[in-house]
């Protein structure tokens, strides 16, 4: 009897951990975008979650317009949110640039205001109702004993990882990617190499926003969209960046999975509805025990 309940418990752990992995990839992707924007532009982008909201609602508009393919909706979301990101960088952030650096505090306050404005704009246009796109990424589920995983959750995970890998390859192997990293590391030397910090900033913010927008369109077939959804995801993204380490790419991926798994496991012990505090609590613990993040570099050397 005792042994059976032990096995039961273990299976539950595995089951919830697997579900956590499904969401963890998405958190990692969001953290990666936030990390990129911070690392290159030194802007703490509080409106990162709203880029996801805008992606989700682009998908919903496509659905209302009769486009049922979620994949077409994702492409549309990437295009729309890239454009919005570009306009924000060009007309709101660029004016805050002094001597090739964006004023950090002003950038953060601006993005905080922007997140409120965007969430309320979405509320004004689409109303407070929970909405969802008509199509599905895939039908059916994978069943492994008690473990039932919706196929579309698996697709969200894979797509998140593919996008994250594409971003990393872009930054690592292309000249433009190297220029983006160069601007993050040393804007003056980048300019002395003939790189336009202005253009790299526009590109970086557009890419970071596009990734969040893609995430938004990716999840709406599986979860509901609502105007204030962005805030939660901003919190997840911040948690991922702090836990993984500011500026650390692998840290963001690792922390994304860690957060997803711990959040999912918390359902076993915490009353439902409390799972949203897991990210901030993990973040606080990280700040106390290892302020530079799990895979981060100690400040001072950077």
């Amino acid at each position, binding site marked *: 009897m005792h042994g059976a309940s032990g096995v039961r418990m273990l299976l539950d752990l595995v089951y919830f951990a697997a579900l956590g992995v499904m969401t963890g990839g998405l958190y990692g992707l969001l953290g990666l975008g936030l990390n990129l924007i911070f690392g290159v532009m030194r802007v703490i982008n509080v409106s990162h979650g709203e880029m996801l909201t805008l992606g989700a609602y682009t998908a919903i508009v496509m659905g209302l317009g009769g486009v049922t393919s979620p994949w077409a909706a994702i492409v549309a979301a990437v295009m729309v949110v890239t454009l919005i990101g570009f306009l924000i960088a060009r007309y709101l952030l660029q004016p805050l640039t002094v*001597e*090739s650096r964006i004023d950090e505090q002003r950038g953060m306050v601006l993005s905080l205001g922007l997140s409120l404005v965007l969430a309320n704009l979405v509320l004004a246009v689409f109303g407070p109702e929970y909405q969802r796109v008509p199509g599905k990424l895939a039908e059916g589920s994978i069943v492994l004993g008690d473990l039932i995983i919706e196929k579309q959750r698996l697709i969200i995970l894979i797509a998140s990882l593919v996008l994250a890998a594409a971003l990393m390859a872009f930054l690592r192997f292309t*000249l433009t990617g*190297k*220029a983006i*990293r*160069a601007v993050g*590391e*040393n804007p*003056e*030397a*980048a*300019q*002395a*190499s*003939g*790189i*336009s*910090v*202005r253009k790299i900033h526009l590109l970086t913010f557009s890419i970071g926003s596009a990734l969040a927008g893609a995430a938004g369109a990716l999840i709406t077939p599986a979860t509901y969209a609502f105007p204030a959804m962005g805030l939660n995801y901003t919190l997840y993204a911040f948690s991922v960046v702090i836990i993984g380490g500011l500026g650390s790419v692998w840290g963001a991926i690792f922390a994304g999975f860690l957060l997803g798994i711990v959040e999912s496991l918390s359902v076993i012990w915490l009353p439902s509805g409390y799972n949203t505090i897991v990210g901030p609590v993990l973040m606080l613990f990280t700040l106390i025990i290892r302020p530079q993040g799990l895979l981060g570099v100690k400040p001072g050397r950077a």
Partner: protein
Amino acid sequence: MAPDSAILDVQGVTAGYGGSAVLQDLGLSVRSGTMTGVIGPNGAGKSTLLKVIVGYLRPSQGEILLDGVAVTGLPPEQRIAKGIAYIAQTRSHFPSQTVQENLRLGAYLVKDARLRAERQNAVFERFPILHERRRQLAGQLSGGEARMLEVGRMMMTAPRLAILDEPSVGLSPKLVDVVYGHVRSLCDQGMSFLIVEQNVRKLLSVADFIYALEGGRNRYDGTPHDLSEDGRLAELYLGARG
């Protein structure tokens, strides 16, 4: 172009940060193919002057002319495209990228792959150690090697005017001689230099022409020889260093 024409002209520049002027009505010119040095005590505005010339800082008054054409309103990357190069005082490279990637970024504006390969070969010929370490991260180089990488990064654009902010900083006397040896030989090949330096003795021994600043204004200009001969100036700029 006449050999003694000015490649750089700084005319009546006033500049500073947040309203307070660090430079006041400053003038300076670099003749083509020469090495021009700028000296002055801390706070004289030497680094600020270089920032204005490279384009990091806009002057509130005055003009910067390159080959007689005003570039005062251009951002740094467009001045680089016109033949200026700049090496900052410290860490003027990208530590988390390899030596080779640093050189490639230095040639960001050079679209011709053959030209890039030629220049990279020239860099590796001049600095064999960089060739040896081409796959290593720049952050793993020693201070002297990093300085050589920065000179190499600069060579990738084949600049006509190189602007160096205290190239001797943090280097042993022996390495200072090595770095200045390379600067001199690049200058002899036709590259013009404008160099700010705390190591006044070293600069006087290699430069063709010297400007001395004080409180953001011109104090003296002339040959290093004349400056050393002038008792009062020599005491002011050389005296403290015995």
